[in-house]
């Protein structure tokens, strides 16, 4: 496997705050690599360094063999970026926006016109190309935001939470587009705090929290780290008694960990099915009215929970 990106001990500090702490990972050519972590975990700062916007406090990364610290102009030719925010000029049309960004990537003349036309078709906005961006819906803006990063056919595309705040239909379209781009051979670094997106898209996942990359691997490799465990999520209205109930459940055979969550409990267990009946019984005896109960097989959320003791949404 050829690595198109090699990040080596990246650190970025803002005053006393360490936003990214000793992060190292690789992205292989043709793969989708997701950085999964909650808000404030350091995903955007990592992408900002890799895209040469921010200079690392220490460490370096090579993209296509070029250093982000020393060869940033070379690096920029190989990467495309889809920022988390809609980075477009609202008073320009989609066509004018794309022409402008294309020119900054050294596209000219017929090549530029052709690429603009292609990406407009790709995002399904050819018929609205001459409308100003400010007249677009949030989902349409997101699509133009992505298109602007694709014009120069980058080898490596950085997508920083591209589905935040959009409707399910646009979200589905973006996820399908990511898969399509990957099938065309583009390597993608995708950051998200949605476990489902990382699971659906990623060949490999890096889990990041408090600036540290705490696990990297395929989904299978990561869930294996957790062990053969399930989690049982219980929602209850006995909010005041939850700590007492949690203490009692902690002593049950087969339950390895009990995590208090908003509105309920999350129990990590070796065998959810055999543990289920005694758990319900104990909860009822404690006076808790169980509103719902859910058995979750190991997934990235479980991994995150296992590694950090917190849910992704916390």
């Amino acid at each position, binding site marked *: 496997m050829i690595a198109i990106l090699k990040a080596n001990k990246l650190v970025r500090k803002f005053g006393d705050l360490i936003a990214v702490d000793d992060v190292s990972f690789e992205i292989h050519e043709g793969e989708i690599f997701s950085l999964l972590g909650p808000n404030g975990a350091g995903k955007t700062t990592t992408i900002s360094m890799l895209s040469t916007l*921010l200079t690392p406090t220490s460490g370096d990364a090579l993209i296509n063999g070029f250093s982000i610290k020393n060869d940033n102009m070379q690096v920029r030719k190989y990467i495309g970026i889809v920022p988390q925010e809609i980075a477009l000029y609202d008073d320009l049309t989609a066509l004018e926006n794309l022409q402008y960004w294309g020119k*900054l990537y050294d596209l000219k003349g017929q090549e530029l016109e052709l690429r603009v036309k292609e990406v407009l078709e790709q995002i399904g906005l050819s018929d609205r190309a001459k409308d100003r961006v400010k007249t677009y819906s949030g989902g349409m803006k997101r699509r133009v935001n992505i298109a602007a990063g694709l014009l120069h056919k980058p080898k490596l595309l950085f997508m920083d939470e591209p589905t935040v705040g959009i409707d399910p239909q646009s979200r589905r379209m973006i996820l399908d587009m990511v898969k399509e781009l990957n099938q065309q051979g583009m390597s993608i670094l995708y950051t998200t705090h949605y476990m489902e997106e990382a699971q659906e898209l990623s060949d490999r996942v890096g889990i990041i929290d408090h600036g540290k990359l705490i696990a990297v691997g395929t989904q299978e490799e990561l869930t294996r780290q957790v062990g053969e465990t399930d989690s049982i999520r219980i929602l209850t209205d006995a909010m005041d008694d939850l700590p007492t109930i949690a203490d009692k459940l902690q002593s049950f055979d087969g339950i390895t960990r009990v995590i208090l969550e908003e509105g309920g409990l999350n129990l990590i267990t070796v065998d959810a099915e055999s543990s289920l009946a005694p758990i319900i019984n104990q909860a009822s005896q404690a006076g808790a009215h169980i509103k719902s109960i859910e058995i979750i097989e190991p997934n990235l959320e479980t991994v995150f929970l296992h590694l950090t003791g917190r849910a992704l949404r916390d």
Partner: protein
Amino acid sequence: MHKIWQIARKDLLLIFRDPMALVFYLLAPFLLTLGMAAITGAFNSGDSGLSNIPLVITNADQAQLGNGLVDVFQSEDLDSLINPILDNDFEDAKSLVDEREAMAALLIPAGFSNSIIPQSGQSPSEEVIQLELYTDGESTYSIGVVRTIIQTFLSELESSSASYSVAISKMLSEGLISLEELPTIMASLSTGMEAGSSTGSNYEIVSSNKTFESKNVSYLAMIAPGMALMFLMYNVSAGGVSFLIERRNYTLQRNLVSPTQNFQIIFGKSMGIFLRGFAQVLILVLTSSLLFKLYWGKWLAVLVLIAFAVYGALGWGMFLTSFLKTPAQVSNAGSAIGLLFGLLGGGFLPITTLPEWLKTISRISPNAWGSQGFNILAAGGTLGDLKWILLALFVMGTLLLTIASLFFRRNVIQAGE
């Protein structure tokens, strides 16, 4: 250069897409300048320049008083105010005025001295001697200054003749003249003094004007350069705000991660601001020139001066942007400095009315230099006359842009995250 132009073009396009911004940047200065002139009700009472007033003098008298008047205009005291040009042919002198090379032409006629101080063996002239002042008809404020100087000179002559008798008594008592000489001296003096007392004087100033279609924009001319430069300062500080707005909207970051050098982005956006500022001042100059026949000077020199003034102002705008963190901070600081520099640079009152210490302080502003330059050009000055002003504006712009660029990466680019 291609990318620099693309960035500048995009910024201009954005301005043209925002009608309110367009009105503010381009038309508001013009409308407000007109408003100021209208409110003061002084459209007819001034001119554009109070320094280096080009005056062509034809001294046909070539005697003591004619030469004395020329000496007055050439004196060190009037060095910065009057730019005297000697020409033996009054018709030539008038043609210089017609061609806007000078604001006025003064004819000191032959016999001017003799009409006041009779030469030995000659009787004083009884004819009323006319000092003729030919003007461009527009620059009434400057011409008023010239006229005042001439009248002051003539008043001095009158008061001198009143003191003749005192002087003669003293000369007699000290034996400098004899009693035998006295009747002759008194006769000649009394003739001259009688002529003077009967008419107030035996000389007068006769004015004639070149005719123009409109002459009613003089006060506007006086405040228009200052207003233009004041709005220019607002404009460029608003341009600086656009950097921070782009940072807030994340388009600056997107520009910065494209294969575009930081300097290209800074130059491109600066060029956009520069062109916008240039257009703003040019619109004011063109419209005031076309609608109100306001004379700004020779076009090439005016365009060069606008460019340098915008460059100086751009330096201030970028300097503010590089130090301040938010669009609101830059807006507030830009407004404050725009107002202050407007005051110092003739946006509200002619700079000549400011106290000396304030005039000195005003040199930190592009407004003061620019206003001075426009005054020189309006007074008939050439590009060569602006060399120090252009140099000052260039140094100001370059120095401030250099400082701004040093802090720009740290305060604007890296602070973007």
